[in-house]
């Protein structure tokens, strides 16, 4: 009989984030009152973060299969086949709540966690990306959070030795109380050397590897499953502390151990630490797990079973080893100066048994901890449709040239150099396209292949129309990969939303997911991994719905690619894609006219595919080297970015007569690209596009040192650059 020293009161249940009916469900499942350790374990397994109890039912609708998908959602990371015996392993994950409370460590351990997810599967990380959203610049906390998060991401990734090659940074008052820190890692493995969490064999040793266990991060996953209030700063002790040096050693030791053939199963200790990793390995393998906590390497004295089971100390791994190979494994770990301890074994009982100081502290049915977690079909309401804003009804408050200068220097559209210069984006010597373009490109080993990587979503579109916004997020990731010459293969999604217990917010989640699913299906761009972060809400104010999409694409020959920079004078600038002049929810409407309203631009996925496939073929055939997609800020902002990147101006002479100039220049119509090519090639491309029924029109020509928009005063490239580069450094040093 298991001894119970602590009475489980309703208050204690509430402190563990369990609803009364959830607790009842658990008591019924085990047939008695739980011990405090068991209560801790179930609170860790059944919180939103680990159980996906509000989201699971909707996630099932996402397309997750394709001939090149080796492993879809459900493992540490997704795996796709990129040919020649190589697999790309990748995932994105949020660390929103801890980063708001302690920005440096929160962001650092977010990077550490996602890197571990990738190398747990046997992959060496080759690139990192991120997706960041902060509150409005004027909010007193924003500079401190930006500074801490960026330093934390750099501090971990730089030391670990992975290039941080891309990302997205934006500001909005809706993130004032809940910032978003989503980190993505991409790794490389051989297709026949991929490792999984599923344990096999009865009586096999379960081994603890890596750093020692301390009292940090206890209940981290529970914190990430609740809203914030004014007292949230007091949750600082639940944030973990990262040690990138230990992680680097863990990487090398794990990869070396995997090569030795000793590893049957491996799972990193991430959210909910030892509890979640041990349960997952056993449950997946239809096996019981017995752990002896006296063997766990601890950093602090007198740790209880409860604390050890819930600690989220970083840089730790759990493995099931082939029996008899413990000595060899231990030698490898000691070479790297890391802890190694056999702490338990697999059993045939299907029970999760925890022993400590000679006593059984927990004895639970292992499969039910996962399978019987609550599942909710929460009530939701569809977001109200917004009216379509006629471009004629939007009056220009300033000249188009002034508007463009304002936008290039605005918080969301300005250069993020201040951020990415704090990330080592060049280490490993394979970064073919650095941050600042449509997608980053990294070479795969010594070539010839390359990967195109991006993170995208337009939250204001998602709020105005979750379905179209969800589609657009996937379409933009697909377009950015296409724009550098990559073939989009798969995505990871990081679904950041407010409280699922409010029907409006749940409606945004449901709508976005439908849109994401639809786009993935049509664009043949399946979801292979992901993460759900709900309860991004403070005192009843939720974030903008932000389903960040991390996209991966393949370049068969990495030397054949395109970039946004104008490369020569006298080249024709061609717009591929139609022209509607859609101003609803545009950056122009928001930042120039001060209006946040209207329906977002609709995404026609068939058109998206047709136009993108055409662009990719132009790049791959060597006809085009200069491509930029049109997104926030429309044609005008894309032109400015191409001019600034290349240091070459342009003259735009075309001007449709069926819409106002500002709608033509700043409209955010989808499925569009700008290309620059020499005049001979231009004629061929216009002809080819015409034959395929793809709208294509010459807008003007590159050259000079200024960007000249129709009927507007010239803006020198120098002036554009100085506005573009100035805002963020000045803001961060308190000058703006």
């Amino acid at each position, binding site marked *: 009989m298991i001894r119970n020293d602590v009475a489980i009161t309703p208050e204690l249940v509430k402190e563990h984030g369990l609803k009364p009916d959830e607790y009842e469900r658990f008591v019924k499942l085990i047939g008695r009152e739980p011990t405090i350790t068991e209560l801790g374990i179930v609170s860790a397994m059944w919180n939103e973060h680990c159980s996906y109890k509000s989201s699971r039912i909707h996630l099932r609708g996402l397309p997750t299969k394709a001939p090149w998908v080796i492993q879809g959602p459900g493992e540490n990371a997704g795996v796709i086949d990129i040919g020649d015996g190589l697999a790309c392993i990748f995932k994105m994950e949020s660390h929103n709540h801890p980063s708001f409370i302690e920005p440096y460590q929160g962001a650092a351990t977010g990077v550490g966690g996602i890197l571990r997810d990738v190398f747990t599967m046997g992959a060496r990380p080759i690139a990192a990306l991120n997706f960041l959203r902060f509150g409005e610049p004027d909010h007193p906390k924003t500079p401190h959070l930006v500074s801490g998060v960026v*330093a934390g991401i*750099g*501090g971990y990734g*730089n*030391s*670990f*030795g992975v290039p941080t090659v891309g990302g997205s940074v934006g500001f909005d008052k809706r993130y004032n109380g809940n910032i978003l820190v989503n980190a993505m890692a991409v790794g490389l493995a051989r297709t026949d050397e991929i490792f999984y969490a599923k344990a096999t064999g009865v009586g096999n040793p379960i081994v603890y590897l890596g750093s020692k266990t301390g009292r940090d991060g206890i209940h981290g996953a529970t914190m990430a499953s609740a809203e914030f209030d004014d007292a949230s700063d007091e949750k600082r002790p639940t944030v973990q502390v990262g*040690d*990138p*040096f*230990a992680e*680097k*050693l863990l990487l090398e030791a794990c990869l070396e151990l995997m090569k030795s053939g000793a590893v049957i199963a491996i799972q990193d200790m991430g959210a909910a630490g030892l509890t979640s990793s041990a349960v997952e390995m056993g449950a997946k393998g239809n096996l019981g797990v017995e752990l002896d906590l006296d063997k766990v390497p601890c950093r602090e004295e007198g740790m209880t079973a409860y604390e050890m089971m819930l600690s989220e100390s970083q840089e730790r791994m759990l493995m099931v080893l082939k029996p008899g190979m413990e000595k060899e494994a231990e030698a490898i770990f000691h070479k*790297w*100066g890391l802890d190694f301890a056999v702490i338990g074994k697999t059993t045939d009982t299907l029970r999760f048994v925890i022993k400590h100081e000679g006593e059984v502290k927990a004895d639970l049915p292992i499969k039910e901890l996962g399978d019987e977690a609550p599942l909710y079909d929460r009530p939701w309401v569809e977001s109200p449709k917004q009216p379509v804003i006629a471009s004629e009804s939007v009056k220009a408050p300033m000249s188009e040239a002034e508007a463009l200068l304002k936008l290039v220097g605005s918080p969301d559209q300005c250069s993020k150099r201040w951020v*990415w*210069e*704090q*990330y*080592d*984006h*060049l*280490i*490993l*010597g*394979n*970064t*073919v396209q650095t941050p600042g373009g449509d997608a980053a490109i990294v*070479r795969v080993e010594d*070539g010839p292949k390359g990967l195109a990587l991006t993170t995208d979503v337009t939250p204001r579109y998602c709020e105005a129309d979750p379905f179209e916004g969800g589609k657009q997020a996937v379409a933009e990731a697909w377009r950015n990969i296409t724009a550098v010459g990559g073939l989009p293969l798969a995505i990871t999604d990081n679904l950041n939303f407010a409280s699922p217990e409010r029907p409006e917010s749940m409606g945004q989640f449901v709508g976005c997911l439908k849109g994401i699913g639809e786009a993935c299906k049509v664009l043949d761009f399946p979801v292979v991994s992901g993460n759900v972060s709900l309860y991004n809400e403070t005192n009843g104010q939720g974030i903008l719905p932000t389903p960040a999409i991390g996209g991966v694409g393949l370049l068969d020959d*990495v*030397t054949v690619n395109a970039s946004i920079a104008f490369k020569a004078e006298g080249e024709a600038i061609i717009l591929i894609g139609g022209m509607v002049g859609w101003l609803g929810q545009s950056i122009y409407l928001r930042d120039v006219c001060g209006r946040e309203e209207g329906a977002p631009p609709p995404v026609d996925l068939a058109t998206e595919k047709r136009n993108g496939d055409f662009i990719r073929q132009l790049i791959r055939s060597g006809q085009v080297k200069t491509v930029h997609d049109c997104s926030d800020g429309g044609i005008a902002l894309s032109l400015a970015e191409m001019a600034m990147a290349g240091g070459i101006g342009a003259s735009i002479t075309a001007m449709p007569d069926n819409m106002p100039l500002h709608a033509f220049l700043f409209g955010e119509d989808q499925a569009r690209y700008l290309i620059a090519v020499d005049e001979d090639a231009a004629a061929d491309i216009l002809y080819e596009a015409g034959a395929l029924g793809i709208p294509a029109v010459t807008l003007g020509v590159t050259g000079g040192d200024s960007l000249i928009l129709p009927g507007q005063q010239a803006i020198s490239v120098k002036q554009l650059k100085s506005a573009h580069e100035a805002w963020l450094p000045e803001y961060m040093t308190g000058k703006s």
Partner: protein
Amino acid sequence: MKSAVIVFPGSNREGDMVRALKLAGSDAQKVWHAETELPKGTDLVVLPGGFSYGDYLRCGAIAGRATVMDAVRAHAARGGLVLGVCNGFQILCEAGLLPGILMRNANLKFICHRQFLKVERNDTAFTKNYAKGQAIDVCVAHGEGNYTADAETLKRLEGEGLVAFRYSDAQGNVTQDANRNGSMNSIAGIYSDKLNVLGMMPHPENLVENLVGGTDGRGLFESLVSSFSKAA
């Protein structure tokens, strides 16, 4: 030429270094920090970039006292060539093979960007394939690259021509703007008295291919290989 690239726990640019050395025609192998001897016939020892021992305590302080460093010191004392890049430069300073120290960058932040360097002299084994005064385009990636030394040391380095590279603009002008980490006299790299040990913060090994930014870093490795084949 035979190169030995020393790997400490936390080194992370050893692979980049091996690739650059091999591209230039050197044989290159990694050597674990716990070794007591260098591989037989080692011509060049390289301490690569990274965060040895997590940069805990002080950058390079723990690695500077690693077992293998006795062998590296002996190699240098025999006149053997030693190259330390980034964390390697910090280790050389901590090991007493080069004077001075690398402090936190002036802006207190890690910085990673492309950077021009002015080649101060081209009569050493490391730089003979460059022109004197040439501006080469490489990159930096460090949080502690702010070269600092006492006035006497600085005077000696300048007086004896031991400054290898300075931060410059694309034309080779040594300007304050180009010196982003705040190094004294814009120093990016220095030689030992006998010109056989070079420590530098920037990464020539990351600029050795046109596909990945350019080839200006290649000259350093080719200089080494060519000076060796002639000497041998």
